[in-house]
């Protein structure tokens, strides 16, 4: 970042100051780490077996892998569902029929305003009453449906803002060559808008994956719940929760990396902006 506009190329004195600050920053971090380690040691959290237990076959095959599979199962279904939901209601908001526009707007705004957890609890307790789904499956469907409604609404907004962010000339050129407004939308605006929104869409998948952890609160046996079950049984809950967090971080970092790569790759193929939501604005990020 030597090219940053915020500070000049540094002279000898500034370099000295920077060196000192570097050392201070490293020291501060070191002190913090030392304090944490000391506190951990005091409470016997550094005992070797509490950590080595994380890397045994039993930990993974009985707890972490089944938990991760359940997390991914809910997340995958929610991703597919919310993309479909988002396309339908995003197109609804762009429709030239006012009643479709109005209905889509109300649906999208409502589900974006209600916390995901509130929807999850509602479906968890509500689905059990309908008797349509086996009681053992209600947590899974509650997680999936709540995630679809919320993230689908966010994706609907992505579709709409994707179309609005295209340069005006794109639509005008379409009209100029004799397309009707809805033809221009279908064959010129939408393909570019959908390409432009792909990176943001992948970023939204990170949100979906993170939000599956809310299923813990409604007894869905996902990764966090498995980690807790293992940890409270073996008395190393601090360590198992940390490992669960690390697993989430690895998967999400991979997705974020993919979003960044996609955005660079696709920027040649659309006149829209491909910067992922994350970077553009810390927008609709929840749980």
């Amino acid at each position: 970042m030597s090219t940053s506009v915020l500070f000049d190329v540094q002279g000898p004195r500034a370099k000295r100051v920077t060196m000192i600050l570097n050392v201070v920053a490293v020291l501060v971090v070191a002190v913090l780490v030392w304090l944490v380690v000391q506190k951990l040691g005091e409470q016997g959290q550094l005992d070797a077996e509490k950590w080595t237990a994380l890397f045994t076959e039993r930990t993974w095959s009985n707890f972490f892998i089944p938990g991760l599979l359940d997390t991914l199962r809910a997340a995958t279904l929610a991703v597919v569902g919310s993309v479909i939901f988002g396309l339908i209601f995003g197109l609804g908001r762009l429709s030239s029929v006012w009643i479709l526009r109005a209905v889509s707007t109300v649906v999208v705004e409502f589900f974006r305003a209600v916390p995901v957890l509130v929807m999850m609890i509602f479906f968890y307790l509500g689905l059990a009453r309908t008797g349509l789904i086996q009681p053992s499956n209600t947590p899974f469907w509650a997680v999936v449906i709540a995630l679809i409604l919320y993230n689908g609404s966010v994706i609907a907004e992505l579709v709409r803002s994707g179309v609005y962010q295209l340069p005006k000339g794109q639509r005008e050129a379409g009209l100029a060559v004799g397309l009707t407004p809805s033809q221009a939308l279908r064959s010129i605006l939408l393909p570019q808008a959908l390409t432009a929104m792909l990176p943001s869409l992948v970023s939204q998948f990170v949100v979906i994956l993170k939000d599956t952890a809310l299923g813990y609160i409604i007894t869905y046996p996902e990764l966090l719940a498995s980690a807790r079950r293992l940890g409270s049984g073996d008395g190393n809950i601090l360590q198992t929760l940390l490992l669960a967090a690390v697993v989430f971080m690895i998967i999400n970092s991979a997705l974020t990396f993919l979003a960044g790569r996609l955005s660079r790759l696709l920027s040649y193929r659309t006149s829209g902006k491909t910067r992922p939501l994350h970077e553009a604005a810390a927008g609709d990020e929840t749980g």
Partner: protein
Amino acid sequence: MSEYLSDYASLLSQYDVLGAFWVNIQLTFWAAIGSMVLGSVLALMRISPPASMRAVGAAYVTLIRNTPLTIILVFLVLGVWSQLTISFTDDFNQNFFIYAVIGLSIYHAAFVCEAIRSGVNTVPAGQAEAARAIGLSFLPAARLIIFPQALRGAITPLGNTLIALTKNTTVAAAASVTEISALMKTMIEFRPDVIIAVFLTVALGFVIIVIPVGLLTTWLSQKLAVKR
């Protein structure tokens, strides 16, 4: 129908819905302050000259943004509180409340940092160059020239973060705080027959809280926009 409504009304009189919403609003208030302070410091670190500070800021944002809020809150309560036995007060509920505020602040600070950084990106290079030209060093330039403009540019993403924070206060249920989502669960379990009305009440409460915040930030961001 009238029976349904009277059932619902009697349920409302038994449970303190407004009180539970008040807990969420308090959580939002304190966590907004906490995440704003921590997020501003992180943003300053991420644009500062020393490479180590930039690295620390970037690492924080990457790690926290990729971790579910639920894990952070469960970790604070089951890991830090019950295993490391760190507590702030003797009052159980107060203690969980403080832990929830800390967890929400830690999580949302990463998003506040990114919001401010995206605001910094809206400040034209000429502003920073002019600041340097009149002899301001990094901190005075950041304080007097960059941050005031960056904050104005960051109002929309900051507003979105505030809305997300408001909704995320429901996750404090994972840290044993009795707020609205926990109360809703209790109410539905007690009277499952009026589940729809209870859900709509809670949902409407959030619509009433969230939509004015959205309108306010849109209005503010237009009013305070730096004319360029």
